[in-house]
């Protein structure tokens, strides 16, 4: 399996003067092979359970402070900005519902994923890139161990598992921010606020949010790992790997968001 992956890289290097078109196809082939290998390695033993737990903790812990701050501020600001529009129609009592729906459907998954793409994606890209250029990945290979399973599979799985958890955490913290604003402005109690909010949330909202977060988490992990695992050209390559992990990760998250909104809208209508 390892040898096949290397061959494709060699193939890419050996193509004489490949045009842009050929390069795009070779890269797509590489990405496809990388993703396919992830699924193969994820299901086949031996499993790196200890490393997976370590990565989950690392990803969650690393993003917690930033996500808490951003989620709280977003909930508070969103509520404050939405109030005048609703007040025009005398509908300020709808604020908790509006904030809950906005947070759960879009803001929480998107915010969490964008922050994770910046913080976790870049970190994965830089870490694996650095391991590639300092031959640590080669060292794992020559010691008859599987670096893909240890480094890539665990990180992609960890981000796929952790991002949905962080998403619901962001939604909760955002709601607390909104509650603070509503309490200060209207004196609404926490019980009344959460009762109104939860009434407006459907099962489909929770499913849609979870599915989106899983896809975003997988994207962040796979993009970071692909960029880092295949990086080259020394320290410059490490920088590029970290940078493209963020840029490509965020770009794909927005594309996926647009598609998923369209997809879940079909079930709502």
């Amino acid at each position: 399996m390892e040898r096949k992956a290397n061959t494709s890289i060699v193939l890419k290097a050996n193509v004489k003067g490949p045009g842009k078109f050929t390069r795009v196809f070779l890269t797509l082939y590489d990405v496809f092979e990388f993703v396919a290998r992830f699924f193969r390695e994820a299901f086949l033993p031996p499993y790196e359970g200890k490393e997976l737990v370590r990565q989950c903790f690392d990803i969650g812990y690393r993003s917690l402070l930033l996500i808490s701050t951003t989620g709280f501020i977003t909930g508070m600001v969103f509520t404050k900005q939405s109030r005048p529009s609703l007040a025009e129609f005398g509908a300020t009592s709808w604020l908790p519902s509006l904030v809950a729906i906005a947070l759960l459907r879009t803001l929480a998954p998107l915010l969490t994923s964008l922050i994770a793409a910046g913080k976790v994606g870049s970190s994965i890209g830089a870490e694996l890139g650095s391991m590639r250029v300092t031959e640590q990945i080669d060292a794992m290979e020559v010691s008859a161990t599987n670096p893909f399973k240890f480094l890539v599979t665990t990180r992609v799985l960890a981000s796929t598992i952790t991002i949905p958890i962080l998403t619901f955490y962001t939604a909760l913290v955002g709601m607390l921010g909104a509650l603070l604003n509503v309490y200060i402005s209207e004196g609404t109690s926490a019980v009344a606020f959460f009762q109104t909010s939860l009434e407006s949330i459907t099962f489909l909202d929770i499913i849609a949010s979870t599915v989106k977060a899983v896809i975003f988490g997988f994207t962040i992990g796979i993009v970071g790992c692909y960029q880092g695992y295949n990086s080259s050209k020394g320290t410059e390559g490490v920088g590029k790997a970290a940078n493209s992990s963020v840029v490509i990760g965020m770009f794909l998250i927005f594309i996926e968001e647009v598609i998923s909104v369209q997809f879940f809208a079909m079930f709502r209508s």
Partner: protein
Amino acid sequence: MQCSDPDPVEQKKTTDTNLEKVITIRNLYKAFGNFEVLKDVNLDLYKGENLVVLGKSGTGKSVLIKILVGLLTCDSGEVIVLKKHVDHITYKELLELRLKVGFSFQNSALYDSMTVAENLKFPLVRNQRKLGKAEVNRSVEEVLDAVGLLATLNQMPSELSGGQRKRVGIARTLILQPEIMLYDEPTAGLDPITCEDINSLINEVQERYHTSSIIITHDLTCAKAVGNRVAILLDGKFERQGTFEEVFNTDDDRVKPFYDYNFIQ
């Protein structure tokens, strides 16, 4: 220019070498794009010997040993390691082969997020899953003791000196008890005293673990200290092979500067 096919027994400093070949390379060719690195490489490594491969930077020395462990594939030719054709074996067979071939990297390639002990445990626990915790710890301590670094057990690689990192890198390969050792520039970037220590360690490894080794270097002091046989890579080919004296007893303008730089300047 090539030395006449030397009798391997004659070339040895050691006396316990037999004639069994553990590595055979025939007509090896490797190019990166239009850049031909290895053109027609032929080489044998005999059981129990230390073979030093000399050559200028960028002549493909490291490429050669990376081909031996399947990190790179050759374009044509035959590479047989421990009776296995490296280019024609399955991934599973390659992993089995890699267990028998230790590779010491130029920059040591220690896993910088792990302690020294974890670095050593990493290949061991993944390749010998039946080993108990106590046995793993004993193996780690044993091999670290062999390289004289038992005290660094819980240190991070960043806390070690260059020479210590090299030693730990060698220990990490020794823990799997390989039959063949491949050293990529073992003395590069080290002071002369540490170089001597590393040279002694390479000889100790040969004696204690009965390994056959290929040592890639451009340090002639190292070559003289550890090599039973020397081969010089010139223009993508091994044009001179033999004992240290045989190889450097020449007027070849491509070989003389090596000797002059190391021993005259």
